[in-house]
């Protein structure tokens, strides 16, 4: 009997500032993200959080 399929949901936050980044990342982990990635784009960051739904 195969397990029911789980889907992933991604939320991408663009234009995240240096000040906002640690706050957002901590809140995303607290929200239950299974993965949080941060990529620097010019002077801001793009934070991608993956959730299991």
């Amino acid at each position, binding site marked *: 009997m195969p397990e029911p399929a789980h889907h*992933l949901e*991604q939320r991408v936050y663009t234009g995240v500032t240096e000040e906002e980044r640690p706050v957002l990342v*901590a809140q995303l982990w607290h929200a239950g993200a299974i993965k949080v990635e941060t990529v620097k784009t010019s002077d801001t960051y793009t934070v991608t959080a993956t959730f299991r739904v």
Partner: protein
Amino acid sequence: MRSIHPFLMSAICALAVGGCQSLNGAPTPIESRKEALAHVSAQMLPAAIQTYDDATAETARRKARDRIIRARIYAIDVNYNDFSRSLSTEQKSFVVGSDVLAAGLTGAATLAKSARTKTHLTTYAGFVLGIRGTVDKELYFSKTLPAIIAQMNASRQTVLAKITEGLARPDSDYPLAAGLADLEAYYVAGTLNGALAAISKEAGVQTQTAEDRIASVTTIAAQYDDLSRKLSRYWQPDGVAFDAGHEARMLACVGPRASVVDLVDVIHGTAAQRTSLVACLTAGGATLN
């Protein structure tokens, strides 16, 4: 009496082969498990976590985090190596030992003169082989044990890569709590149940593919203003821990079925949503600084 001698001989042979060093399949470790664990015992104490909690500077927090996580990785590795080594040795010892014992009993039955002794010895041999088959199948998973150990090693490497990647990030991105959660997964990956679950999971290729599918991607243009700061401080009064009571009030204001992710979106999303949230909280008696 003479018919008992072969029985004793076979039992001694079985025990001797079962305890044979070459069955270990690995050289003796340079230090015992207890000695190895003593090297990192300081990082297992609550004081180590307290040091991390007390640190405010990013460098100090990261250093404390790395020490705790690396020490625990080492401790899990020491225990895992001890476990996998003993697992393999026990199986080999049991299988070889019980085979030798059964062969000895069968040989003794052939040599025995008394018909009653022959019957007894043959029955004992059958009993030993029966027990061997059941234990080997149920406890040692028969010949699949090497595959299970290989799965445990592979799963552990996957989780370890995730932890290593996390340790390369700042503490704000990969806090100790996230590291400890990954360490739990690292431990579970090295258990028989974890390996069997992983094997079962891989067997259902279609299910696995479905699991990896990203159902939706939502893009939010982040805005972080003064209200965002106030709401974040209200949610995390000390800047680290989340206040459960405040969180419940905020979620109630965001909407009847709002999730924590929705709350994150309001704090980092559009200004209008934040204004509405702050108004609701203030009306409920909350003070936002």
